[in-house]
């Protein structure tokens, strides 16, 4: 349980990046974004978190949105990246890459020291 809570804390910080990355692939609606995140292995991510993140990114002007009527259920609100969203994604990607590289080095150094 504690481990689950920790992982969701970590996830919160990178959810923006994850959602932007999913939408960069192709436009998508809320529930589909959630499904694709889970397919990528982010099982901990909550439905409300994805929905809230989408609304916030949209409010911040990073996403475009349009409604697609659906035969089988409710009409779907699709989200896609606009220029600002793509810029945010590339900036966040750089930050993330630098951060993970530094963290990996740190963790690897620790484990090799422990090992040898």
């Amino acid at each position, binding site marked *: 349980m504690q481990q689950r809570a920790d992982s969701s804390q970590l996830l*919160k910080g990178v959810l923006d990046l994850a959602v932007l990355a999913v939408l960069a692939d192709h436009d998508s609606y809320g529930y589909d974004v959630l499904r694709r995140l889970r397919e990528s292995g982010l099982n901990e991510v909550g439905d409300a*978190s*994805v*929905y*809230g*993140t989408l609304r916030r990114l*949209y409010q911040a002007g990073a996403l475009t949105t349009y409604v697609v009527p659906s035969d*089988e259920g*409710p009409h779907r609100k699709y989200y896609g990246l606009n220029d600002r969203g793509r810029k945010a994604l590339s900036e966040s990607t750089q930050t993330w890459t630098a951060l993970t590289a530094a963290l990996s080095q740190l963790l690897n150094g620790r484990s090799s020291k422990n090992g040898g």
Partner: protein
Amino acid sequence: MADETQLNDVATYAAAVRAQLSDLPPGQADVLLEDLEDHLAEVAAESGAPLAARLGSPAAYAAELRAAYGLAQEGGRRWRFARLARLGRWIAGFESYRAVRGYLPELRPAWWVLRAYLLVLALAVLLRGGRAIHPVPNPLSSLGLLEIVAMGVAVVVSVRIGRWSRRGDRGGPWPIAVGNVVVAFAGLVALGGMSTPDWNYGSPVSEPCCVRSDVYAANRPLTNIYPYTADGKPLDGVLLYAQYGQPLMVGGKGSGVTTQYPMGADGLPITNEYPQRQTRLDGSVVPRPRVALPVVAASPTPSPTPTP
């Protein structure tokens, strides 16, 4: 797919989530919850299980939404605001409060006039330069007259501002609200530091302002000064000033003697004009004392009728 039960489930669940977020400002709630129902319907369509079983309680869902949307959790500051709001509702429940609340807007023009008065009063106190300011300006003095004129102008401006800021929605622009508070505070401070007006101009003024001299004459406090010209003519209405230009006032008080100061055109007593007119308790005027004039060499005295 979306059968009746599912639609009901979605509506109930969404309503419960909305209720949890009812403390959000309307604009923010609209943006956040715009297509909550559609989204939940999508989730519900995925399987037959009730939403609460898949998504957790509406309260937990709302809390997660809040966090993801970047809003502060309910509690802490919000909790205190909620308490304040509850206190406000409790007060609003009283009949007498609602009655006052009802006629309060009618008093608005009165406040516009009052704030103009307080503003001029506060400015007058700031700029008085050592002179006493009274709550009711004296129209016979130049400063008082200036105050009255300034109050008239300020009232006109204040009413205009008031009418202008009330035009649109309720609540004027915030600089005016801040100004109101400042004027009210400064005005009350100015009023608090004031003495009551002294309308009885002929009466003795016991403690006027100004510099006192602690001069003693023959071991007794100085109570009056009698100037003479060099050739021994008594002078009246002589103004005396100390070395820095302050009006000179004798410090001593004769027992059973009151001093009447003449009034200046500005309505303030002239405390340094000598000899001072002093009366005893029985109303008799203190007479000029006999003085021993120095013997001076006879000099040509200016004569009003020069002889050719």
